């Protein structure tokens, strides 16, 4: 299992000032695996995700991506990030560029693809997320769900080895959530390695290979969806699932 690990996290710690958000997290994600991270707000799940591509600088422990120690000062973090796609709660599309422009930019500037190739990939990825008819629209002309799908296409265009979803549907109106979840579902089916922070229990149950429950900066419990949802061992997990249901 560990020879196929794409992301390996050992005793990860992160503090913001006096506040310790991650108190020693160990987690391994293998190729093709979909890991859904659940937990109450403030449990450190977003911070965990953001440590994987070093948007947050870990205070201690190790984060490995394939053969690279991510939190090593000598590591060229931009090289690592090329291969780690991230989707944010607030979409973060570039408002001055069209959907196509959003998907093309990093391909050209980071991967140095020529314009024609980047455009071709952009159209393919936007079609994949169901937005073939919106390629020339600006973010402001798109609904939240469509914007988030553009953001997914933007990340996919880089041919990532793993995708991080940080509450990708939390900012969406309920009726727009499904379209985004469908895209994530089909990605999982296509074999993409995914780390997903979400509050969508249905998605976790259907799509996750493994569910990780976090609380107060540690992993409390993990297992298959049925293990965690149907037979939670920890009181805290039971409590959390009870509140959600």
């Amino acid at each position, binding site marked *: 299992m560990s020879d196929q690990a794409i992301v390996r996290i050992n005793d990860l710690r992160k503090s913001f000032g006096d506040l310790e958000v991650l108190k020693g997290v160990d987690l391994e994600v293998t190729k093709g695996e979909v890991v859904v991270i659940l937990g109450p707000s403030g449990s450190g799940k977003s911070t965990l995700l953001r440590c994987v*591509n070093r*948007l947050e600088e870990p205070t201690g422990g190790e984060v490995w991506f394939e053969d690279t120690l991510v939190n090593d000062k000598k590591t060229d973090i*931009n*090289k690592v*990030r*090329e291969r*780690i*796609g*991230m989707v*944010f709660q*607030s*979409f*973060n*599309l*570039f*408002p*001055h560029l069209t959907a196509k422009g959003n998907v093309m*930019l*990093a391909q050209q*500037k*980071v*991967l140095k693809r020529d314009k024609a190739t980047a455009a071709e990939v952009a159209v393919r990825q936007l079609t994949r997320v169901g937005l073939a008819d919106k390629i020339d629209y*600006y*973010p*402001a*002309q*798109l609904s*939240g769900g469509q*914007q*988030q799908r553009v*953001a997914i296409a*933007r*990340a996919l265009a*880089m041919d990532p080895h793993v995708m991080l979803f940080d509450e990708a549907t939390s*900012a969406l109106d309920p009726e727009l959530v499904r379209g985004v979840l469908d895209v994530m579902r089909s990605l999982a089916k296509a074999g993409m390695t995914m780390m997903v922070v979400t509050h969508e229990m249905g998605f976790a149950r259907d799509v996750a290979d493994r569910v990780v429950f976090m609380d107060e900066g540690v992993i409390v419990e993990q297992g298959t969806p049925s293990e965690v949802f149907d037979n939670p061992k920890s009181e805290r997990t039971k409590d959390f699932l009870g509140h959600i249901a």
Partner: protein
Amino acid sequence: MDALLESLTTIGRIFFDVEKMSQALPIVLSAFPVSVFIGVVSFVLAIPGGLLLAFMKMARTRVVRWPATFYVDVVRGTPLFLQILIVYFGLTLLPFYQTLIREVPQLKQPFLFGIDFTIYLRAFFVLSFNSAAYMAEIFRAGIQSIPKGQMEAARSLGMSTPQAMAFVIIPQTVRRILPTLMSEFILLFKDTALLAAVGVAEMTLRSREFVASTFNQSAYMVAAAFYLLVTIPLGRLVGRLEDKLAESEGGGGAKRPPTLLAPEIDAEHVVAHSEGIPTTGSSPNPITGGPR
């Protein structure tokens, strides 16, 4: 009733004498390009300086931040008129300046519109250095008004910080600050009038000469008209740009600050100058917040 009519006629004769105005027109008109030229060149020269100062002010190291903060505070905290007096007479006393004039006597020849280059040089120098300090605040506030998620998204795609700045942050900043920047140009253009006090033959000086020789104020009205010829259309354009900006923004998912409308060109404007873009995390400063 007669008394009223009489005072109106007097006012008309003093300020709006048609004959005097038509005599003043070609004189002021000949100085119009001087004012515009000095305004435009100084403005363009101030942009790189303003950008440099803005980035310095946002630097993490205090050693970089401090000189920029000091410069901006000093320039914005002293009257432009005083700065003009210092530069116009002070610069000529400097050895390197005297050497320059000796070595390149052509600088003293009429350059454009009958004015020698050293005059322009000093005008550009003082106005662009002054304006750069104001622009630094415009640029800094503009860059910081872009939601943090934009930089994060760009970096998460593997872009370096300079790449993210160049292709994501700055293009959005330019759109946002364009109205404020144009207001800055309007202010700068009006400020060229202060150069009259040090003998630069721009519109205000030429009209003052005419007034002095005719004991009639009408030439000032002609000059005013020429200033308005530039400032009113530009001011309207600023308003239109703001409307367009307000319309087109709203994408990107992250919420943006409620307003960044540049103030109208009026008395309040000068006070509100450079405060047109909401800043985050900076408290109002008695110097930087004050009128020019």
